[in-house]
């Protein structure tokens, strides 16, 4: 990773010096050793701030929306999931491919921040759950690729083969209706509706989210379990077939709500009902809820 970090800084410096891009989006060290928040580099002399380590969780693609209407190009570093996010944003016509210089980084998997806090800098810190499940650690779209492509591809191949672990979802599916409901309401009664999950999500790229449309009255400002669940379920449906499994919603949630348990459920069902599908892998305008098959399962007869 040291190696990658140096290559990052090198390439960033070059792109900025040559004036090919106005700004480079990457990661830098944060307040604590286990935080590597987004960094925005616009001067060659600042590239030393860039790092790539075990905590570069942040999905940088969504920030690109902030540069849509600005002149000049933007360079961004993408892990596998970030690149799927980029594809989703392309799919949704939110970004123009040409405007961005994509620098792909093969991702070894990011480590669990909460555990890091617990176990300390010398502890043996496990990968974040979402990274253990990751099928696409390598960027799927890029202009530059840092690191050893062959090696990365091999590593990726083995991952793609292995099936995602849905045991957490299945555990809930096994519960009785009342158990399920108690579980989910105990999660969502503590939701403070800060909308961090939405704002960090690359699939949530609406100009104006319905939850900000107080006039139509989709949702009230009141914070109660019912409204919070309305928000959660609606968001889950909105990102159904579009969630790229970056897990940022869950990481961003200040109240530790297991949001990915909803997203994973929908991913699981979409695969079962309409065939295997991984969002953000291809950009072909064919989304699970954007088309249909006359031979879809029939349960409503």
């Amino acid at each position, binding site marked *: 990773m040291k190696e990658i970090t140096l290559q990052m800084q090198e390439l960033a410096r070059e792109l900025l010096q040559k004036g090919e891009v106005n700004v480079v989006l990457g990661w830098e060290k944060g307040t604590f050793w286990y935080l590597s928040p987004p960094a925005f580099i616009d001067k060659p002399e600042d590239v030393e701030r860039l790092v790539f380590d075990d905590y570069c969780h942040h999905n940088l693609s969504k920030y690109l929306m902030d540069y849509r209407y600005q002149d000049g190009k933007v360079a961004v570093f993408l892990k596998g999931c970030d690149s799927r996010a980029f594809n989703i944003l392309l799919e949704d016509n939110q970004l123009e491919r040409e405007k961005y210089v994509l620098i792909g980084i093969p991702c070894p998997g990011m480590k669990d921040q909460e555990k890091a806090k617990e176990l300390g800098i010398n502890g043996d810190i496990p990968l974040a759950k979402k990274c253990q499940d990751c099928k696409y650690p390598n960027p799927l779209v890029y202009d530059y690729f840092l690191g050893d492509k062959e090696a990365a591809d091999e590593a990726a191949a083995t991952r793609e083969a292995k099936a995602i672990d849905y045991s957490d979802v299945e555990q809930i599916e096994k519960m009785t209706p009342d158990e399920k409901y108690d579980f989910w309401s105990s999660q969502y009664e503590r939701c403070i509706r*800060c*909308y961090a999950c939405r*704002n960090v999500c690359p699939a949530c790229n609406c100009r104006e989210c319905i939850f900000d449309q107080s006039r139509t009255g989709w949702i009230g400002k009141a914070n109660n379990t019912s409204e919070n669940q309305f928000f959660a379920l609606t968001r889950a449906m909105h990102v159904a077939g579009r969630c790229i499994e970056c897990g940022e919603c869950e990481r961003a949630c200040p109240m530790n709500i297991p949001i990915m348990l909803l997203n994973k459920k929908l991913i699981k069902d979409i695969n079962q009902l309409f065939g295997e599908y991984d969002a953000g892998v291809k950009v072909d305008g064919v989304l699970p809820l954007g088309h249909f098959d006359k031979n879809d399962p029939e349960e409503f007869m």
Partner: protein
Amino acid sequence: MKIIAKERLPEVLQLLAKDYNVLVPAKFEGVTRFTPYSGDVELVLEENVLMPPKDIFFPQTEKMYKFKAKNKSLEIEELPVEKEEQLIFGIRSCDLKSLECLDQVFLTKGYVDHFYKDKRERTALIALSCVRPQEACFCHSMGVDPQNGVGADIQAYDLKEKIGFKAISEKGQEILEKISGLLAEEEVSIPSFGEFNLKADIEGVPEKLQGMFEHPIWADISRKCLNCGACTYVCPTCHCFDIDSEVRGEDGVKIRCWDSCMFGEYTQMAGGHNPRPTKKERVRNRFMHKLRYFPERYQMLLCTGCGRCVIKCPVNMDITAIIKKIKEAE
């Protein structure tokens, strides 16, 4: 000082629960907050709670009154007021400071908010001293003494195996009497407080900010902000609210709910115009409010150094780092 062994603290709380609705720092589903005391709550004494006590006095959603639209006439119906006396055990110095801030907003300058006032008046406070700073604490930099809170009725001291109590107000005296049966008198020394991991040099910052409204620094620091409301909702001092009504047919309720200056619609006007269209203006407003506007109006900072936002911000917006940037800015 009056002391009791830590493991016997529940007896104290039990006893107080007879006369008060006792709220204690407890952990539930991985989130710590003040929770009504019962035998089975998971007490948290080694660190401050994630959710600040502000929602005890200023709930995230508060019903104000009911109304009924009966053929063309409108009837207002007041809601019954809570009478129950409550008591918070284990509030930390930083959060006491935040109540001082909220008091300014809700009780001074001729504006008295009776929803807040009522709850404030029937709530006794037992402060608990901190033994060591958590990684994001910087209360000291904000002029808060983690071991001696201001505005509590009783100051409790965490003495490792024991807990000591010192009455501060008359109300505190009464409360202490109620539990004196359980306490023993003992000479103790308050354990020394460790080094702060985070510091912020606030010296001269409010003044400097007066000239920095148009400063490029805001565009820079706001870039990574997601404009979510996490920081404002875990902040013990943020107190913006919005008033809304829930109408069902003829019946309706006026409610007031927390709002966040980080949200786009926060300043959205009816015509669609938004004076704070982007992150830059919103982030600027948040820090201007905490470090300049509030001090100008109330002669105190709107930050207590509790460090919650530093921990919970999904993108690690660190107010201490921002204060540093402000200081260094030309």
